[in-house]
């Protein structure tokens, strides 16, 4: 039995362990566009904070793939699936055949269509380890950071860089932070706590102005919000 | 109060270097002695409320506490002790009878401590209890005059009902009401495991403890609390309480405030009524009346159980015992003046009655002289403190001993003698649920079993040392005793020689 898994995070790990509980012989191939050993995504903000490192972020130990008989094709993107031939075609032209295929690529950040965004030089999304590392490299003392979105990812990003001596501003369409999780009163408590850590908030904002293009965009969360 | 006549007797000494302010002393003191001051993060104590029960000391995890006798003194006076003076202050204040708990603490002679045991050497060998069988079993009850045989020469069973014990110790009468249910359960379970008996006291038998009936002596006291047919049938023996060593001649009084819930149900009296045990049984005014009650109880139980008559040790105890031995009772229990109590007037407890050692010796002697020693077994109580006291009591003539205070000490009692307040911090002499909880019968009964197992072993060692291998060979064996520091009269009454003779 040939198992192919596109994706290399929590779902992939769960799938590998479940498969191996039932089938110790079949081959497992994991295709991942990231070049890393499986890691815990929620920890990227803690990496920026210095509370963990790339080694401790690993979601399973180093021998995980070998111990479970998995072939890891990292740094490869799956571009097409041929269900008739039962093949996955990769970006480098190679193809991988399968008996069973699992697609678990997770979610991608939604970047709203903001006029002038294409001219912004330093902009990042904040979902992967590479995002966090790139952001970290780009930050300098006194950089001005604008975070679009005050949901979970926006605020975790803000927390992650809060100790880096940068000026953080966070904006959101909604009238309150963590709008899909908290009510007005508890949201206010969280906002106040973050403001004490020098994070500025502009909430309930609709309009866009493209005056400055030197802003560093730090985050664009998956559900979309808006910009100013 | 404007003039404080009474200075606290005890002081709580706290080592602040060791105190971690864990507050367990505060939480565990029913007298509210300790308090935590939040502002200064410090524990403080109000000495005036301390009764010296040691609950806080025993639970303090860093051993930061101790209780000392205050060194605040009256001028030295061999006649007017601080105690005598303070008692007058108390009575001047409240005009009441002084009440006390537990046994007589006054400085009267302890005869057990003036008796010494023998050991075998050279002329007759001692016995090693670890290598040779030792009989600690005793049978309590009337013994037949002589062996009887039938027409074919076989032995006729003319043995009246007996109590069979694995060792010559029983737990003495402590009523449910004076002590807690958990204490009773601990005693019952320990008696069952050890193969001995415990005594219900005058508070009746709680329905949950009927299952230990084979190890229970049911007591019929002057108040007749909890006495009904099933009660009598459930025990292994029935004890008629004529008197108690701690308070000879007077009755008992459990205040109505304590007669609630299960206590009221078990005693068969309405909640809130005072439980008064009258001084004489209202139907016993002579020895013939006692005989009548003995036989009523035997009739009621089909002559299947021995009847015990318990008396206090008073001046003419020998004559009283003689009368009881002829009344049909199977066992006489004598309670000496050191016996404990839940509450008694202080003056009665401290000044009435005689030492059990002297009472025992004179009763044993009188019954033997009258040729009726085998009509009864003798059980004695009233401060049996160790296995040595047990051996000495048996040597003086007892078939068995009762322990009360010693059993409670095993359960955690620290003899603070505040039982009458009902706030026993060890969960023994109280009915307050939050305090009774503190006596876990799973732990309590194990401690009692341990104590008795240790005593049994010690008794065997002492007997073995004397070259005796059974309790019955030790009973009344006055030659195994010698006295020290006793005068001629005491030696004569005890029936022993002085050491060196």
């Amino acid at each position: 039995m040939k198992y192919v898994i596109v994706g290399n995070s929590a779902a992939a790990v769960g799938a590998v362990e479940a498969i191996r509980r039932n089938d110790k012989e079949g081959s497992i191939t994991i295709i991942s566009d990231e070049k890393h050993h499986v890691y815990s995504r929620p920890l990227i903000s803690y990496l920026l904070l210095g509370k963990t490192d790339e080694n401790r972020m690993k979601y399973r130990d180093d021998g995980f793939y070998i111990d479970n008989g998995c072939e890891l094709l990292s740094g490869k993107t799956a571009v097409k699936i041929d269900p008739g031939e039962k093949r996955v075609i990769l970006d480098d032209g190679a193809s991988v055949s399968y008996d069973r295929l699992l697609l678990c690529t997770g979610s991608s950040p939604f970047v709203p269509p903001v006029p002038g965004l294409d001219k912004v030089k330093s902009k990042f999304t904040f979902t992967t380890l590479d995002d966090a590392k790139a952001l970290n490299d780009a930050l300098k003392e006194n950089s001005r950071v604008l975070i679009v979105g005050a949901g979970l990812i926006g605020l975790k990003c803000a927390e992650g860089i809060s100790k880096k001596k940068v000026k953080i501003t966070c904006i959101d369409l909604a009238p309150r932070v963590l709008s899909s999780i908290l009510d007005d009163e508890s949201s206010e408590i969280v906002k106040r706590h973050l403001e004490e850590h020098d994070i500025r908030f502009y909430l309930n904002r609709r309009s866009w102005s493209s005056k400055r293009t030197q802003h560093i965009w730090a985050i664009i969360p998956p559900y979309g919000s808006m910009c100013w | 109060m404007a003039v404080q006549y009474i200075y606290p007797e005890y002081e709580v000494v706290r080592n602040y270097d060791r105190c971690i302010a864990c507050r367990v002393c505060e939480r565990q003191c029913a007298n509210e002695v300790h308090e935590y001051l939040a502002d200064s993060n410090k524990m403080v104590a109000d000495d005036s409320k301390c009764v010296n029960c040691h609950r806080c000391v025993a639970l303090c995890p860093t051993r930061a506490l101790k209780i000392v006798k205050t060194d605040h003194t009256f001028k030295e006076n061999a006649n007017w002790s601080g105690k005598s003076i303070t008692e007058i202050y108390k009575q001047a204040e409240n005009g009441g009878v002084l009440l006390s708990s537990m046994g007589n603490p006054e400085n009267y002679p302890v005869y057990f401590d003036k008796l010494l045991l023998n050991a075998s050497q050279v002329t007759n060998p001692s016995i090693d209890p670890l290598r040779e069988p030792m009989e600690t079993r005793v049978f309590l009850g009337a013994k037949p005059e002589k062996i009887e045989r039938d027409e074919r020469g076989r032995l006729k069973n003319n043995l009246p009902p007996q109590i069979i014990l694995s060792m010559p110790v029983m737990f003495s009468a402590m009523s449910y009401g004076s002590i807690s249910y958990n204490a009773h359960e601990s005693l019952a379970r320990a008696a069952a495991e050890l193969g001995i008996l415990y005594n219900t006291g005058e508070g009746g038998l709680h329905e949950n403890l009927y299952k230990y009936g084979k190890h229970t002596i049911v007591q019929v006291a002057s108040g007749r609390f909890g006495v009904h047919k099933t009660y009598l049938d459930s025990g292994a023996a029935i004890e008629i309480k004529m008197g108690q060593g701690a308070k000879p001649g007077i009755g008992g009084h459990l205040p109505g405030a304590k007669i609630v819930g299960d206590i009221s149900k078990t005693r068969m009296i309405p909640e809130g009524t005072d439980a008064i045990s009258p001084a004489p049984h209202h139907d016993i005014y002579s020895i013939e009346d006692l005989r009548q009650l003995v036989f009523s109880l035997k009739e009621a139980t089909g002559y299947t159980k021995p009847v015990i008559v318990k008396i206090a040790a008073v001046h003419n105890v020998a004559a009283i015992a003689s009368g009881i031995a002829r009344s049909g009772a199977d066992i006489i229990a004598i309670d000496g003046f050191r016996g404990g109590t839940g509450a008694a007037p202080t003056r009665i407890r401290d000044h009435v009655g005689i030492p059990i050692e002297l009472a025992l010796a004179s009763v044993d002697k009188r019954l033997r002289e009258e040729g009726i020693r085998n009509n009864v077994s003798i059980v004695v109580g009233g401060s049996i403190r160790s296995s040595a006291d047990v051996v000495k009591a048996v040597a003086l003539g007892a078939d068995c001993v009762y322990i009360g205070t010693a059993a409670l000490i095993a359960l955690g009692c620290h003899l603070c003698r505040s039982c009458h307040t009902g706030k026993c911090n060890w969960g023994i002499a109280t009915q307050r649920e939050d305090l009774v909880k503190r006596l876990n019968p799973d732990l309590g009964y194990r401690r009692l079993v341990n104590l008795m197992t240790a005593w049994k072993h010690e008794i065997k060692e002492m007997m073995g040392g004397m070259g005796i291998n059974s309790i019955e060979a030790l009973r009344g064996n006055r030659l195994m005793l010698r006295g020290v520091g006793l005068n001629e009269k005491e030696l004569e009454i005890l029936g022993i020689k002085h050491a060196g003779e």
Partner: protein
Amino acid sequence: MKRVYVNEQWCLGCHLCEYYCAFASTNEKDMARALKDVKINPRIRIEEKDGISFAVSCRHCDEPLCVKSCITGALTKVNGIIMIDKNRCIGCYTCVLSCPYGAVYPSEDGAIQKCELCIKTHEGTPKCVTGCPNGAIVFEERGE
């Protein structure tokens, strides 16, 4: 597997288990020195109301919600005992939120702490069990 069980019939609410737990996680031999002027942060806590008290500590659940919620894998089940790797823990406190017994607590160093049956500190019976003065806390196998 042996677990710590509390019988509320005998719990006196004396809080000694909390102090013995706090002492057990220090390296001191003397409790007075270990806990003097220390505000304790024990892994077993007394809950009390209306005369009933009960000591709550990690149940080492067969289906541990804290382990499932841990984003770093710092909480794992080792031989049936739920253990914390403090080096991995980043103090997100998701486990504190998830535990249905409230038995996971923040610790002084930012990571979390919870009862680990005294495995890391010494052999044998957990200290809350030996420290309980009334036999309310036991350490036994109940076949669950």
